[in-house]
């Protein structure tokens, strides 16, 4: 029953939203070049899919997000661990991180273009920036908020050396890290579209801006919908990690 409800509710809300959209277009008599109705968008989606452009755009965007996010993860998590564990590193680097963090990745676009030119490298760099700082801060504060009891239990039972990290530190922060990854991947996906509008000539962001330039509002809306669907899929994929048996305790405790 619960499962059924889970599947039924989104179907209903999406269905109602599409109906309201269609109704609004008809009642207000909006011309298709201003904002297309659901049928026109479905038609555009089909067109884009058949021409192969949709698939190419999606892979181009996913390619950049994957690389940028992956590189950011590889850099931010180890550095975050070091900053969390080692006080002097934190005292040294944290102010710098806190200063750089609020600078929107979009503000870096001109710099990226100047250094890396139009293309994948710029886009990946921007995704990297958008993910790196939040992940770093997530990791660091996860280390800092480990319950002191866990540390004491570890000391008490003589858990030393490398085991302190593999048996206590990492498992204790893993749930926080996964939450951090989830939120950060969402941000990365937000940023890729903006980056592609300016820094490259392919991907879903480019599909949208190109649709606007050629007055194809149906392409624009189709692009937006694809962004939403992929965002959902990415989030769902990472949320599976939260179901791991050694991670689930955090949810259960509340």
């Amino acid at each position, binding site marked *: 029953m619960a499962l059924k409800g889970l599947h039924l509710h989104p179907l209903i809300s999406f269905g109602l939203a599409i109906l309201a959209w269609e109704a609004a277009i008809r009642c207000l008599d909006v011309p298709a070049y201003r904002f297309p109705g659901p049928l026109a968008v479905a038609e555009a989606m089909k067109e884009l899919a058949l021409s192969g452009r949709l698939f190419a755009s999606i892979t181009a965007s996913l390619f950049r997000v994957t690389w940028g996010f992956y590189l950011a993860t590889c850099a931010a998590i180890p550095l975050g661990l070091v900053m969390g564990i080692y006080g002097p590193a934190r005292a040294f680097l944290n102010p710098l991180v806190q200063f750089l963090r609020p600078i929107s990745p979009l503000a870096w676009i001109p710099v990226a273009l100047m250094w890396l030119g139009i293309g994948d490298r710029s886009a990946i760099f921007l995704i990297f920036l958008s993910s790196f700082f939040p992940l770093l801060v997530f990791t660091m504060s996860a280390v800092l908020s480990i319950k002191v*009891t866990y540390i*004491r239990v570890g000391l008490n039972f*003589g858990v030393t050396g490398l085991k302190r990290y593999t048996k*206590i530190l990492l498992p*204790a922060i893993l749930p926080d890290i996964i939450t951090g990854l989830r939120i950060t991947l969402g941000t990365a996906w937000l940023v890729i579209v903006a980056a592609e509008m300016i820094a490259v000539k392919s991907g879903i962001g480019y599909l949208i801006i190109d649709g606007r330039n050629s007055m194809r509002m149906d392409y624009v809306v189709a692009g937006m919908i694809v962004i939403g669907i992929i965002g959902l899929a990415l989030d769902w994929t990472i949320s599976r990690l939260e179901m791991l048996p*050694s991670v*689930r305790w955090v949810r259960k405790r509340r």
Partner: protein
Amino acid sequence: MNKIEVRGLSKSYKERRKKRRSPGDCGYRHGCPVLQDLDFRIEEGSFTCFIGPSGCGKSTLFRIMAGFEKPTTGEVLVDGVPISGPSTRHIFVFQEDGLFPWMTAMENVALGAGRFSDPVEREREIRDFLDMVGLKGFENHYPHELSGGMRRRAEVARALIANPEILLMDEPFGALDFITRLQMREEMVNVHQMFDSTILFITHDIDEALQLGDRIIMLSGRPSSVKADIPLPFPHPRDLAIGEMASLRKEIYFHIGIHAAL
């Protein structure tokens, strides 16, 4: 023979504030004195219960005896040697949940089983201890899949399997329901008879202390010192309602200012 000797132990928390948070702010200007000049000895293999008002520093005293914190002045000697830090020789059972939530009951208990080098023997011992505390069949459950009482028992098993010389238990059963507490109390009497560990036990429950202890050390309010030291040379099982136990119980209640003991 004396196992533990506490000598002139004092502890103040250092935090000094220039601004007074409230009229009687404890940390204002000077550090907040928690323990003052504690002196007592604990006999090897004995079961000592500590009682005292909330916030008087019982947990602080235990943290110092376990080596997690340093005293401001004075020292704690175990077998004549000052405590230098945490060690598997003195295991602490925490007031709040101390099991690692990311490990199964078995993996948690395995933490205390480091002294067994042969893996087959270790596994058998772990199973025996889980069995002893009634967790057979729950070896592979995570703490959040166990009840509060089962978690406490797993933690006790983890402490006992390490065969510690000293077992420091900080209100281990404080969060349990009444019936479970009574059951755990009985199990602790058995533990005391089966194991050689010197047991130190904090409780708020005077009846619990009377049931379990060879001795009760009563601490005064903060800054706390030993207010009364009561030997309990009675055999188990004990009936608190009759004889000497009953009058002693009344006396203790009277001591803490409750005049109509229930």
